């Protein structure tokens, strides 16, 4: 299966969407989309912040609480066995959705933020003052601050792959940024602020040639395509459930097999041990070693439902549909006087970040909300890149999911025209 995200040169033809993908059927699965806001039909364009949930996810969580709720791994009773089976089936679903080689490579976490903090904490124990971590100028704060904390704690050096003025990573600068002290490259798959799809497979190839492992922040990747960690060639891949139509507070870290034994535990507690005495503790093998305490069981079960549903979708057709949403929104918004799109990479998911001369993003966002349209305004947890691209007061970000329609795009453009008229 091809996908915009993993193929180095995605060829997407909007004409490919000739009825194979019925957005009306998809929308019907999302109860939250069937409402009015401020007297207008809801147009939900804040999908990069979080996605709405299909009925199958809501029902899976509901069913768990109604029938199977118990703690996992430790109980002898029937409910505990059922809960454990479902939780471990969820792990297998994540493995399958990321195409990891073995299920042990999937560690449940709260989300991408925790996944990166886990790697920073565990991998960080191998680092010494002067060792280098290489991130990119496009990163979300979740892939900056954990490394900054490590810099404060042990004196590592944080280097940054530069970004061009259209919002693409400047990979020509990459080889020179890798030094013998570079211990890890940590980059996002897709920029949350701009929508840029980064060529992570290419970064992994360059990194491999230098013997440097790569962590990919995949928060914005899976919602827009099929991810294959083996084909990307990364050592770590982090994903969040709520960005991919699943529950909040659950996500996964893929860690390639050799790292599972090498890395020390992240947090201490129950479920991550084999034996405990006051003098010695024997840790459980991975992934349990990294999962201290009772996890978000219902979250994992909801995530399983979300990913199974996601896997059954026609991603060729979705890629065409999303490309059409992006192209239509981009063209329509460009017509508005004084509007500047921030981030015009050649390879993007359907995210349009923009500013309008002489207006504040918050004013635009408020006036869009009054018209039933949900967008995000501000810095999108990516202050460095917005500063570089000249959007210091932040941007308005319309981020689409495959359940959005061309009518949603038209409503957005109409509403931005109206807000623009009121504010200028």
């Amino acid at each position, binding site marked *: 299966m091809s996908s915009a995200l993993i193929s180095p040169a995605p060829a997407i033809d909007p004409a490919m969407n000739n009825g194979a993908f019925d957005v009306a059927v998809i929308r019907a699965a999302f109860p939250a989309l069937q409402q009015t806001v*401020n*007297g207008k039909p809801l147009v939900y364009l804040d999908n990069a912040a979080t996605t709405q949930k299909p009925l199958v996810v809501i029902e899976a969580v509901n069913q768990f609480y109604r029938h199977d709720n118990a703690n996992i791994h430790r109980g002898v009773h029937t409910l505990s066995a059922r809960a454990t089976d479902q939780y471990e089936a969820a792990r297998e679903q994540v493995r399958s959705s990321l195409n990891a080689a073995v299920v042990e490579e999937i560690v449940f976490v709260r989300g991408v933020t925790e996944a990166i903090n886990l790697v920073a904490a565990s991998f960080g124990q191998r680092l010494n003052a002067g060792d280098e971590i290489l991130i990119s100028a496009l990163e979300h704060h979740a892939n900056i601050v954990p490394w900054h904390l490590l810099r404060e704690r042990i004196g590592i050096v944080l280097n940054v792959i530069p970004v061009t003025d259209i919002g693409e990573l400047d990979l020509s600068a990459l080889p020179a940024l890798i030094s013998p002290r570079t211990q890890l490259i940590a980059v996002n798959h897709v920029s949350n602020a701009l929508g840029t799809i980064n060529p992570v497979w290419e970064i992994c190839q360059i990194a491999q040639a230098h013997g440097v492992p790569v962590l990919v922040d995949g928060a914005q990747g899976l919602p827009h395509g099929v991810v294959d960690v083996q084909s990307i060639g990364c050592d770590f891949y982090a994903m969040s459930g709520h960005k991919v139509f699943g529950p909040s507070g659950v996500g996964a870290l893929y860690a390639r097999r050799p790292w599972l034994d090498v890395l020390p535990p992240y947090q201490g507690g129950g479920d991550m041990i084999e034996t405990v005495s006051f003098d010695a503790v024997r840790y459980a093998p991975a992934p349990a070693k990294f999962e201290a305490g009772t996890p978000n069981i219902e979250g994992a079960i909801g995530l399983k439902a979300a990913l199974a549903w996601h896997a059954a979708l026609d991603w060729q057709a979705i890629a065409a549909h999303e490309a059409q949403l992006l192209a239509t929104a981009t063209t329509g918004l460009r017509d508005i006087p004084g509007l500047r799109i921030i981030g015009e990479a050649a390879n993007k998911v359907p995210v349009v970040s923009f500013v309008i001369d002489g207006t*504040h993003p*918050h*004013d635009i966002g408020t006036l869009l909300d*009054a018209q039933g349209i949900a967008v995000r305004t501000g810095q999108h947890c990516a202050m460095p890149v917005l500063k570089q691209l000249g959007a210091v007061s932040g941007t308005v970000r319309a981020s689409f999911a495959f359940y959005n329609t061309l009518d949603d795009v038209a409503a957005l453009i109409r509403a931005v025209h109206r807000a623009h008229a009121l504010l200028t």
Partner: protein
Amino acid sequence: MPNMTHNLAPQAAIAELKEEFAFFDDWTDRYQYIIDMGKQMPPFPAEKQDDAHKFHGCQSQVWFDAEWKDGRLELQGTSDAAIVKGLIALLFRVYGQQTASEILATTPEFLDELGLKTHLSANRATGLMGMIQKIRAIATEADYR
């Protein structure tokens, strides 16, 4: 459009705002009205647009100053965001040119009555509440002196 130097008592100013708000059918028009109120505020002195006068707790930039004149509180403020500036103008219509006891007698419930609390994003409502608290704190201090 009311002029900004009027001196209605707070409750009368609130009643007037409610009447004006009721005139509009939808929130886009109401926001336009709020934006226009901001545009008609006297300009905030450029020399006061500094860190000392910056009001924190807002995502947009807000500057604010208050001074007692003949027992009434003179308020000045502005923002780089048009709706926030309009909301500041709205607060000033209620709290500006009032005595300390009038200010203290006016609790922020009127934001609810105007429908503003449900319509503003949480962080903007917090910023607005923060400014009311600041104005009331200034009045409390004056009241004790």
